[in-house]
């Protein structure tokens, strides 16, 4: 092929990096709506409603929101995994670079989501003080942030892997793989991670290992996916 005949040929960063940037950028659009909503509902509306009805709030509502949010994130990642692969291939890139980009994006988005965690606790503490309620936040917000990153990444990759299994092997295999989405609750229960700041170095290392394992498994499944026909 003569490059000159095709007009301008530009040098681009690696396809993994380009795709990850695109995926994170698109997810940021969703997060720009979801994150403020989470803060307003979890830290603002929920305590205000309880105060209105004279109900004593638990030590922290935000900790509940923080633990549940990755489940929703899992669904977003799972949907993204299915819809974007054909586009990625149609624009001349490999499954390998797609899988790497998805893993990179999940970790990046987990990090961005985790930044909300300390902010939520600080705002919630101020709101609780206004009602004269006792507030309980993790002793170490940094550790809470790390826990959140690892938890969200595990949830997200488990969702991506489940969706990839469903797409590659069909509905039955997808149903069989569904328990994968509960891997974080199972593993954290096994490690007795009950509090957001109770994560020790061995547990953190184990979760990092789990993230790596899920990433490798995801790449292996995506490597053999045959893209299905699409009609208008």
């Amino acid at each position, binding site marked *: *092929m*003569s*490059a000159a*005949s*095709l*007009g*301008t*040929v*530009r*040098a*681009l960063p690696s*396809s993994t990096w*380009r*795709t990850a*940037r*695109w995926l994170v950028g*698109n997810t940021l659009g969703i997060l720009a709506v979801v994150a403020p909503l989470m803060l307003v509902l979890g830290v603002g509306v929920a305590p205000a409603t309880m105060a209105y009805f004279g109900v004593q709030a638990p030590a922290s509502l935000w900790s509940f929101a923080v633990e549940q949010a990755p489940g929703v994130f899992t669904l977003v990642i799972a949907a993204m995994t299915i*819809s*974007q692969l*054909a*586009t990625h*291939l*149609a*624009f*001349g*890139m*490999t*499954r*390998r*670079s797609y899988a790497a980009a998805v893993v990179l994006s999940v970790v990046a988005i987990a990090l961005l989501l985790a930044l909300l965690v300390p902010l939520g606790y600080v705002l919630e503490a101020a709101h609780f003080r206004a009602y004269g309620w006792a507030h309980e936040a993790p002793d170490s917000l940094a550790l809470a942030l790390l826990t959140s990153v690892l938890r969200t990444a595990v949830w997200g990759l488990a969702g991506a892997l489940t969706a990839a299994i469903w797409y590659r092997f069909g509905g039955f295999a997808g149903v069989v793989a569904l328990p994968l989405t509960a891997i974080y609750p199972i593993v954290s229960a096994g490690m007795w991670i009950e509090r957001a700041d109770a994560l020790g170095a061995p547990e953190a290392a184990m979760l990092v290992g789990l993230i790596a394992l899920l990433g490798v498994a995801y790449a292996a499944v995506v*490597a*053999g996916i*045959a*893209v299905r*026909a*699409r*009609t*208008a």
Partner: protein
Amino acid sequence: MTGFGVELRDVSVRFGATVALGGVTAAFLPGAISGLLGRNGSGKTTLLSTIAAFRRPSGGSVRVDGEAPWENPRVLAGIALVREAGDVPDVRVGEVLRYGAAMRSTWSGEVAERLLARFDLPRRKRVEHLSRGQRGALAAVVGIASRAPLTLLDEVTLGMDAPARYACYDELLADYLAHPRTVVLASHLIEEVDRLLEHVIVLDRGRVLVADEADALRARGVRVSGEAERVDAFVGDARVLRRETLGRSAVVTLYGDLGSDARARAREKEIEMHPLPLQDLFVDLTDRPGSADRPGGAR
């Protein structure tokens, strides 16, 4: 020569018990516009998907620019498979162009913008809200602006209205002439794409029925008409694709080399001889006795 060539050797694709491609051996020439023709279910989309590494073949080998395309970054970077539904991100139309610019090193932003205006595509509308014709037009924009060394267009014009389809052909041809590359057009609208094609492959039930230069193919398809006995005598051993009779007259569609003196012999026997449009030839080549949509006429 410019663009990626494609070599297919005994390529088969099976979906369970269904054979979508049953041993396809063919080549798409580098730097040419080729037509991939075939009836519904003939295996066109499966073949293009296999070339673009959307799926692995069940057997045989696919070579694009001399290498297997499966997970081959160099080769895949030079392939653009554009299907009618459009494999584009589900974002606003304007963002699709930004995606193309970000992902394709050969992307022409200038061409994309011009085509967007020509097809009157709403920049701020999300892809999922576009009509079928608009999605086809967007797919055409992506396919042409990608300027990929191997551009595979799978029925992109099917849902577009006539002015948009002709605009698409004109733009494709103009950009191809300015920046030659390999283009494979799979289309049912043979009459419309006929003028673009330099090479034609006809698939039928997962096998190659015909693979030839478009001009050679056009020259082999002939329709002769006249008094039935004379026509039959003229036809001789030539391959008859269709024979229709009306009273004592007969119209016969032939495929093959009739020899250099065919016109003189026809004149001598008072037989009229007409070249066959590619579409008619395709219909006759792929017509199946007993099929529901078989055109009328005795064989």
